[in-house]
Structure formats: structure tokens, C-alpha cells
């Protein structure tokens, strides 16, 4: 039976991870590490999922502080009270604020390493991102980390640094890393919030012109696939790095995604793509973060190899869903939520 410590339950993927955990019989307890406004978050989670059973407890803390802001005694107790840590919390804003990104994405990992050092039985399952591949064009395998890539933003950089810290640590053999590609809501249902790749879709659905490449491919996965892969692998004791991506064959051209996003918003035509080199005047007329996001993500990036995850997930009965089967409805739902104010 697993005793689980979960961070980031109030994130797009974290909420789905919690849902998966609640459905498992081999979970003895789940402790959610929540920020100080935890009651509000719990209420939102209960609305989205179900009233929390007794096996779910919460602990208020600040992941960005040393020992998560807990006293030495509480920290020692925390270290010895769990078998599995699932770290989904992250600052996902694709800006250039490296300091903030490191604080939110790198410091908690240092704390986790300390917890792992204190409890030799504890294993960590860390939610990273396939976009640690940064500016690399070409293959990115689950065995890669430093390929000489550069980074588009502080989020990519800090997630890369977090992975590097975990790999370099003495506890690396007890750490499993998950790298999802662009994550959206559930394949057939809503989503806890509109994080992940939703801002990119919102930009695609609203804009007439964007800096991008219509021929480039975008790799989307639904959050429930990511969550079920994480939970199943975590509970089966898997280690290593896993790409949770739909793969080149199933990824969609930017042109197709732009059309999908536009249709969901009731527009007949998708945003037109302008090459990066010619698109700079658009920056003057648009939200600079959305512009930078589009410029970085709507051009061809790395091709994610899924060798390891395919091999590990097939025996568990988890298969990558093709975006064609779920993406259109997911985008439509997101668009409706956006129009109605979102969560």
C-alpha cells in the first residue's frame, strides 16, 4: 500500500493525478501539499472531482522555501511518513523571469532531494516537460538531457535545471521523471483549470496572424493520459525518464490546430502563420507573452521519442490517444469555458 505525498494538486495535471490516485486500491493515504489558501483549493478540487475521502489529508506549506517552510521536526516527520512523492507543482509561465522560475521549479526539487536523502525508501515522481528540449530541432530521446540546446523561456530552463539537479543527486536512482508535451484537459471531459497548452490554443483561436510555421507539427496529450501514466508507473515502481507525448506520426500540423482552434471559437478561418523573421511587427500590436509563446511553440521543435514510455505503458494497458480522437472536442470545451469566464 502506498502512502503518497502530492504537490500541485491544483494544477491541470495534478488534479488528474489526484483523480487517478483516488481510484486506486493500493493507495493508503494521500497528503496534499497546498499553499496557505488550501481550503479554497480543496473546495475547488472537491467541486471538480468528488468530496475527498478520509484518506486525503492536507498540509499547508510553501514549496519555494527551505524544507517547504516547515519546522525541522515537521520536516523529519514528513520525510518518514511517505513512500511515494509525486511532484506536479510548477510555475508554468513561459516568461523570461529566471529568478522566479528557479524559485518555483528548482528550489522544491532541492527540498525533495533532501527528503529522499532522509528516507531511503521514498521514491520521487517528478513532473517535468518535454520542452526541456528547448530550441533543439531533431530527435529528443528519454535518455537525453543536455543536448547543447538553448531555451525559449525561463520555464524551460528551470525545468531543465531541475532535471539536471535530480540526475546529479545521490538519489537519482529513486527518481522518475515524466516529460509530457503540450497538455490539455481530459480526453472526454473538462479540465480543472486552463493551464498547460490552453493559453497557446487561446492565442491560436483569437489571432488573425501569428509568428509560426504552418508546416511545423504540434504534439498534444490529454491530461488524463498524462496522469494515468504517472500514477500507473509510480505504483508499479518504474524508474527513469518517460516521454508522455503523442509522437510525430500523431502530432498535428500547426495549420490544422489553428483551424481547429478557430472553429471552436466560431471563426471560419484559422490564424495565418508568418515566418519568425517576418513576424516581428506583430509584436507591437499584440500581447508580448502570447507573441513570444506563439513564436517559440508554433515552429518546429524537437521530435519526442517515446521508446521507453511505450514499452512501460503497454503492459499496463495505457496507450497514447491520437489527438484526432479527442483534440477537437477538448478545444471546443475549453473555448466554451474561456467564453464563460473559465475556472
Amino acid at each position, binding site marked *: 500500500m502506498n502512502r503518497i505525498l502530492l504537490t500541485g494538486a491544483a494544477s491541470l495535471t495534478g488534479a488528474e493525478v489526484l483523480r487517478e490516485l483516488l481510484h486506486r486500491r493500493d493507495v493508503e493515504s494521500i497528503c496534499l501539499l497546498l499553499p496557505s489558501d488550501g481550503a479554497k483549493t480543496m473546495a475547488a478540487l472537491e467541486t471538480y472531482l468528488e468530496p475527498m475521502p478520509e484518506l486525503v489529508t492536507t498540509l499547508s506549506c510553501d514549496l519555494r522555501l527551505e524544507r517547504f517552510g516547515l519546522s525541522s521536526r515537521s520536516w523529519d516527520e514528513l520525510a518518514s511518513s511517505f513512500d511515494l512523492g509525486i511532484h506536479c507543482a510548477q510555475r508554468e509561465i513561459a516568461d523570461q523571469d529566471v529568478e522566479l522560475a528557479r524559485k518555483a521549479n528548482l528550489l522544491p526539487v532541492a527540498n525533495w532531494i533532501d527528503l529522499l536523502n532522509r528516507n531511503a525508501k521514498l521514491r520521487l515522481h517528478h513532473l517535468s516537460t518535454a520542452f526541456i528540449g528547448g530550441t533543439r*530541432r*531533431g*530527435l529528443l530521446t528519454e*535518455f*537525453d538531457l543536455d543536448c547543447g540546446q538553448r531555451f525559449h523561456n525561463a520555464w524551460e530552463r528551470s525545468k531543465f535545471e531541475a532535471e539536471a539537479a535530480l540526475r546529479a543527486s545521490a538519489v537519482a536512482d529513486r527518481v522518475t521523471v515524466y516529460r509530457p508535451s503540450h497538455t490539455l484537459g481530459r480526453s472526454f471531459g473538462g479540465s480543472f483549470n486552463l493551464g498547460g497548452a490552453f493559453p497557446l490554443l487561446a492565442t491560436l483561436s483569437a489571432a488573425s496572424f501569428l509568428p509560426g510555421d504552418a508546416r511545423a507539427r504540434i504534439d498534444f496529450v490529454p491530461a488524463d493520459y498524462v496522469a494515468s501514466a504517472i500514477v500507473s508507473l509510480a505504483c508499479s515502481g518504474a524508474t527513469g525518464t518517460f516521454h508522455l507525448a503523442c509522437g*510525430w506520426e500523431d502530432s498535428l500540423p500547426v495549420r490544422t490546430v489553428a483551424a481547429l482552434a478557430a472553429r471552436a471559437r466560431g471563426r471560419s478561418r484559422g490564424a495565418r502563420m508568418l*515566418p519568425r523573421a517576418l513576424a516581428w511587427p506583430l509584436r507591437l500590436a499584440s500581447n508580448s507573452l502570447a507573441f513570444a509563446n506563439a513564436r517559440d511553440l508554433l515552429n*518546429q521543435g524537437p521530435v519526442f*521519442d517515446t*521508446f521507453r514510455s511505450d514499452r512501460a505503458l503497454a503492459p499496463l494497458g495505457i496507450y497514447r490517444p491520437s489527438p484526432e480522437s479527442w483534440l477537437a472536442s477538448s478545444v471546443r470545451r475549453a473555448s466554451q469555458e474561456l467564453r464563460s469566464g473559465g475556472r
Partner: protein
Amino acid sequence: MRTKAYESIDDLGRERLEGLDIGLDFSFGALRAMERSLWGELLVRYLTVESDDGTVLAFTPVYAGSNLNFNALLPRAIQTGYDALVASLGMAMATRVAVVGSLISDRGWIPMLRGFADRAGALRLLLREIERVAKQHKAQLTMLKDIHRDFPAEERALMRAAGFTEGFSLPTVRVNTAYASFDEYLTRHMSKNGRKHARKQFVKAEGTFTLRVIDDFEEMIARVFPLHRAVFLKAKYQFEELPPRFFVECARSTSPKSELVICETMDGRIVGSLMIFYDDREQQNKRIGIDYSHAESGLIYNLLNYTGIQRAITRGLGTLWLGQSSYLPKTRFGGELEDQYLLIKAHDPVLKPTLPLQRWWMSRYSAANIQAGIEKGMPL
């Protein structure tokens, strides 16, 4: 005679290739491993010239796509400029290339039926089919990859007559392993210094590394792939980028046979890996993987290569191929450089005028030129 194009090597079948001089480079298992590990938009077609009764007379794979590193042999500035162009103007600027030959070959040629008389006729037909397939897949360049010097010169002339510009490609390295034992190899094949160097490597390894050979190595892939990947990422010339699946398919191959030599530290950490292909005539040290974080990575490289040579000698094989890189150590191991040619045809009017320049640039890759560099202590 007629031409045909197949989408998979399985459609063509292993038996139909048996009468051809396919060697290790065009062996069924090697091509299937490559086919099953293509990534991105890269695709393959297998072109044949067949007699009326369906006998395959000539055969070659053609790989088409824009994710082939076609300019790996060109100056660094051109490679960087090309990457910047694609990054700023998009995939529309990526050059689509058709590469004729095996993407993972150590040397290339056009495999033909042994003893077939009308080779020229078959080659002409095949070249026409290559042209058709290249156009069908909108290739801007067609490259006949690494035609080895042993391939008949008059047939290379036919390729040039079909509009291909010929330049040097990276030479391949052949080792004569027709010796009764490794000791005899060291004594008779290598210079005094080389001999001393080889023996010293094994002495240095004692108590530090162990080497073992694994036939069924599929389960080892996850452990050794990072080492092979490290070598690829560090390589000066990055050609085909192979995913882990390639190694799995190689492990499963029976034609060619394959094995893995691994180098471990005394605490069981794998720090080196050498994947070998072999049949009953020759051997290839196909891919090497090194843990560069280990202080003795140079020693690991040498040990793996010497072990590869030992394996070929033990099997009684007369020829070992060491591939197209790292010429300085490979000549020290006893290898000899052999010329290969790259034949390029541009279908794009912008690229056409660049061919004479490419030809000039690639003249540096002649075996004689590289050998001269090695002797001056300035290998390529």
C-alpha cells in the same frame, strides 16, 4: 527488365535479396532496423530492377525527407546558416533530400545479382527510377551515398552521365583480420609502436575494466543507449540520428548477426559499448558508445575497438570495417583508409550552381588527403 518500388523491406522479402551482393551494409536485418526506426517525416522506398520472372537484378533503398543532415560534410558556416534560415523562415526552407543507399552503411554501392551480365542496363533503369521517386517526393537534391572505390568505375561513370556530380565522401576504414590469432595480428600486422600501444591498453585495463560479449542484448539497450547517444551528440559529423528502437531491432536481427561488447568498471557500471554486425565473410564495428564522464574514456574506446578486432579474428573473418570517423585511432589499430564517393544531383535551380563548390570542398575527404593529415598529426 522492369523497375519496382516497395514501401517496406518486408514487402520485398529476405529471400529475394539472397542472390545479390548485399554484404552487411544492405543486409535485410540492417535495412529493416533502419526502416523501423525512421523518425520525423523521413520515409524509405526500396527500388528494384527485376527480370520478367521477378528475380531481383539490382536493388537500393532511397530515403526521402527534410530531416536528413545532408550538409554534414559542408563547412560549419553553411550548416549554421542553413539552420538559421530554417529557424527563421520555417520548414518551407528545409531542403528535401533523397539519399540513395543504406543510411547506416560503412560503404555503399548498388547491390546487383551476382554474375549478372547487363549491369549497365540495370543501373540505367535504376537511376531513372531513382529520379522518378526523388521527384515524386519533391526532393531538391538526390545523393548516391558513399559509393566505395571497389564499385566499378565505369558504373560510376554512368552515374555521372545521368547528371550526378561526383565528389569525395568520408573514406571508410578496412582492417585486414585474416590472421590466426590476435597475437599474430599484433606481430605481423601492426608496427612496433602500435603493438606496444595495444598491449599497454590491456595491461592498463587490468583491475579497472572488464569486457564481455552479449549476444542477446535487447534488454541492455536502455543501459547502453545513453552511451551511444553521447557519442552521436559529440560527433563532428552527425549523420543519421538513431533512436533506441534501432538498437532493439539490431539486437533482434539474425541477418546480419549482431552482438554487443560492453566495458564495465569493477563495480558493474557500464562505461563503454560496441555494437557489432557480422556474417560469415566480414564484420562491422557498427556503433560505439562511451561514457565521457569517465576519466579513462580514451582507454575505453581503444579497448572496445581492440576487442572488436579480436572478435573478427576469433571468428576467422578476413575483413573488419571500422566506419567513417576517428581516422587517427583507427589507423593506429591497423585500419586502412579507402576512398568513397558522393554523387549529388540537384533538382532545385538554386542548389545546382553550388555543386562545383561542394565538389571542391569535399576533395579534402580523399583518403590520401586524410592520410597525409594523419601523418602530419592533423587528422580530419
